[in-house]
């Protein structure tokens, strides 16, 4: 099967709408078909991967834990907008330590997160076959 480059744009925070969890579900489905998948976190989407989320008070499933499984699904390209982080007073150290094991480097653990400027992100987006916005 031909492999396509899929990018999922995540632009909304985790729990106010259903977009974040739906995006993650579709990402996992696409991964099962062994496509080249990357994720981008822009605008309020950066809140999706902030460390220390707690949903006890709202009675919803804390699916932020699921992002830690992405490495096992060979999804290890998570681009985060530098500008979006800065606008919200966040930095890379506020994000969950999301990692994958590099098969070609003796299973060394490496970070999946890459903070990029919006210009860099634009260039990465233009290389994709499919961009899906959530």
């Amino acid at each position: 099967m031909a492999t396509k480059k899929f990018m999922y744009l995540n632009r909304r925070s985790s729990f106010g709408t259903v977009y974040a969890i739906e995006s993650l579900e579709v990402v996992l489905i696409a991964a099962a078909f062994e496509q080249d998948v990357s994720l981008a976190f822009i605008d309020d989407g950066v809140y999706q991967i902030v460390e220390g989320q707690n949903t006890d008070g709202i009675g919803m499933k804390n699916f932020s834990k699921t992002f830690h499984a992405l490495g096992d699904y060979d999804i290890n390209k998570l681009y985060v907008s530098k500008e979006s982080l800065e606008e919200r007073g966040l930095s890379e150290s506020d994000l969950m330590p999301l990692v994958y094991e590099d098969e070609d480097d003796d299973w060394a653990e490496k970070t999946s997160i890459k903070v990029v400027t919006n210009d860099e992100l634009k260039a990465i987006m233009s290389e994709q076959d499919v961009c899906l916005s959530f």
Partner: protein
Amino acid sequence: MAQICGAEVDEEGFLVDLKDWNKEICIQMAKDDDVELTEEHWGVIDFLRDYFEEYQIAPAVRVLTKAIAKKMGKDKGNSKYLYSLFPYGPGKQGCRFAGLPKPTGCI
């Protein structure tokens, strides 16, 4: 809606409320599928339940195989071994016994 040991299950036999799960239900589900649960089955079922607790999803078969190889050794982390335990698929049948939802992307 159908029930197993008093717990509601959906049309494919998966638990509606994951909190209902207990070993009795698991054993009954296996019995209905003509599977007798051994220590080896429980090893995989416990693994699936731990995985769900940690990641909040039921793993895809490919991911499950890899993760089991890592934790329990290569002789167990392969499809042949897992399918010998769960003939209807370690993902679909294993997750159902373990009280997990159907794996995402599983058709």
